[in-house]
């Protein structure tokens, strides 16, 4: 009987979601019904207390600040500067300026917590510049779509904060754990570009300028501001001077100073970044608080424990479990955004993961990677939407040219499984 009601709730949940009811409200609504049915605790009061608790929780305060930092940097000339600083170094590599997509995204990811923001900020510069120089659209758009997702894996990362709060794992440790997997994935992307360029030498335009080593170093001065900002944010976390929240605060101040020095800070851009960040945070908060209440209600239902017991009884090997979870998230990622996906499933899946003996830091990186894949899987993928807006191409076209990046991410998941130290080694050195 309970199983039947649980199934009914899941059907209602996905029915509401598919019907276009706002995600955050749907989560708390379904949770409210579940609590009314399954527990004697007054559902409405539990809802208000849980939502208040998660909306005012100190651990989450890093989130709005990192969102704000991204909004400020989006309105600076940072991406132009990065292009100028990077271009001389990659002209001689096979694939030439295509690498500015990957390296640019990887560097910007280290000051931005969002995949779509990284994609939009770097694309704003590389899309027109590479097109002007005659690089093939397929590769320019495909690699940008893939590399933009590094925004999530390379710290700071919105999705890691969300996961850290949901799984009660140190956000600072998660951030540090993301560094090597991020570099690994960026290397895979760049390696792919190089191999592709060697196989299709006629499709890459010739180098436009040549630089001496000294000139290259001189051009690199454009990278100094972003490097300083990365050191301030990640350096303070790694050395233990600051918590993730405090690093976010430092990041906001640093970004404001950077945009002041560049001359892009004025009342208009400050106002836009502040209101934009407030709205973005508000959207995420509505989902997070709804999910917090849903997680509580699921606990009353006993769903997480039942699922863990069910999966244990299946006797899957750990590898099969990870593969099954990856497949599940990739499927879910086709229809839901990453944050909803994580908060919706964490409360239910974590007991299963813990009882299988999987390290929660490692699992956080794994989840971040599969959420990255969700960014470029149609029909719902935020990087696809961003690039659709920027290039005016069909969604299906962008998804198709991004396909090789998707395959590379699958390879990254496998590498992460077989060599877990890629993620777990660095946090132990903090």
């Amino acid at each position, binding site marked *: 009987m309970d199983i039947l009601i649980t199934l009914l709730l899941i059907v209602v949940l996905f029915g509401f979601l598919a019907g276009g009811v706002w995600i955050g409200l749907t989560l708390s609504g379904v949770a409210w019904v579940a609590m009314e049915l399954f527990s004697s605790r007054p559902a409405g009061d539990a809802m208000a207390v849980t939502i208040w608790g998660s909306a*005012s929780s100190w651990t989450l*305060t890093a989130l*709005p600040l990192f969102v704000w930092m991204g909004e400020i940097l989006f309105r600076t000339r940072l991406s132009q500067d990065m292009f100028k600083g990077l271009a001389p170094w990659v002209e001689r590599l096979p694939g030439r300026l295509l690498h500015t997509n990957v390296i640019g995204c990887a560097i910007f990811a280290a000051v931005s917590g969002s995949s779509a923001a990284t994609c939009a900020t770097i694309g704003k510069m590389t899309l027109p510049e590479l097109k002007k120089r005659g690089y093939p659209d397929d590769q320019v758009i495909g690699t940008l779509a893939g590399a933009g997702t590094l925004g999530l894996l390379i710290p700071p990362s919105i999705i890691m904060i969300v996961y850290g709060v949901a799984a009660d794992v140190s956000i600072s440790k998660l951030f540090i754990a993301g560094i090597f997997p991020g570099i690994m994935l960026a290397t895979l992307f760049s390696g792919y570009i190089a191999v592709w360029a060697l196989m299709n030498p006629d499709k890459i335009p010739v180098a436009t300028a040549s630089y001496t080593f000294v000139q290259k170093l001189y051009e690199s001065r454009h990278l100094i501001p972003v490097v300083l900002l990365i050191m301030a944010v990640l350096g303070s976390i790694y050395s233990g001077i600051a918590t993730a929240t*405090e690093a976010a605060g430092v990041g906001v101040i640093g970004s404001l100073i950077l945009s002041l020095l560049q001359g892009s800070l004025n009342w208009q851009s400050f106002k836009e970044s502040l209101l934009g960040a*407030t709205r973005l945070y508000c*959207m995420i908060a509505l989902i997070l608080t709804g999910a917090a209440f849903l997680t509580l209600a699921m606990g009353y239902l006993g769903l997480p424990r039942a699922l863990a017991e069910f999966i244990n009884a299946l006797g899957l090997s750990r590898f099969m479990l990870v593969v099954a979870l990856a497949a599940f998230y990739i499927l879910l990622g086709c229809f839901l955004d990453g944050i909803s996906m994580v908060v919706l499933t964490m409360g239910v899946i974590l007991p299963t993961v813990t009882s299988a003996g999987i390290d929660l830091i490692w699992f956080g990186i794994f989840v971040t990677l599969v959420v990255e894949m969700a960014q470029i899987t149609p029909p719902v993928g935020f990087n696809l939407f961003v690039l659709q807006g920027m290039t005016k191409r069909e969604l299906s076209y962008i998804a198709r040219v991004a396909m090789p990046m998707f395959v590379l991410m699958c390879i990254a998941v496998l590498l992460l499984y077989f060599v877990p130290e890629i993620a777990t080694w660095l946090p132990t050195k903090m």
Partner: protein
Amino acid sequence: MRNALDTLYDSAAWIAAMFMVALLVMVMLSVGGRELGFHVRGTDAYAGYMMAGAGFFALAHTLKRGEHIRVTLLLHALAPAARRRMEIFSLGIAVLLAGLLAFFSAKLCWQSWQFHDISTGNDATPLWIPQISMALGTLILFVAFVDEFVCELRGTRKAYASDELLRNE
């Protein structure tokens, strides 16, 4: 009426933005305090309250700008008439849920005041004070949903084509 409502949402958004700045100030106070050796009691808890304020007061404005996430896949695939029915259905549900949320938020705030509920942190704030942001914010969200619902019924609902939505994760 239209103007009054829009002013309400926009003023609430500005209050939210102020809370965001206040959150930054709180966090920087705690960093600065540790580096420079002064101590401000309860900055962690205050930062949490500021964050709550920023989130709750911006709810209605964010909705009006079309930036709260929903799955629009099915909605966009439907013919106009069916789509309208679906919009009315989802807005109807949303009005109910937002009403529920607003009611219990107000109740929580009122009870905290009634029972002199004090924060367990070292800030010892009477909890009803920060909880006002939750009570008011969810109430304004409820008003905004009713507003949207009525506009949809009258056929005057504006669809915001926002590109900011695209930078959200």
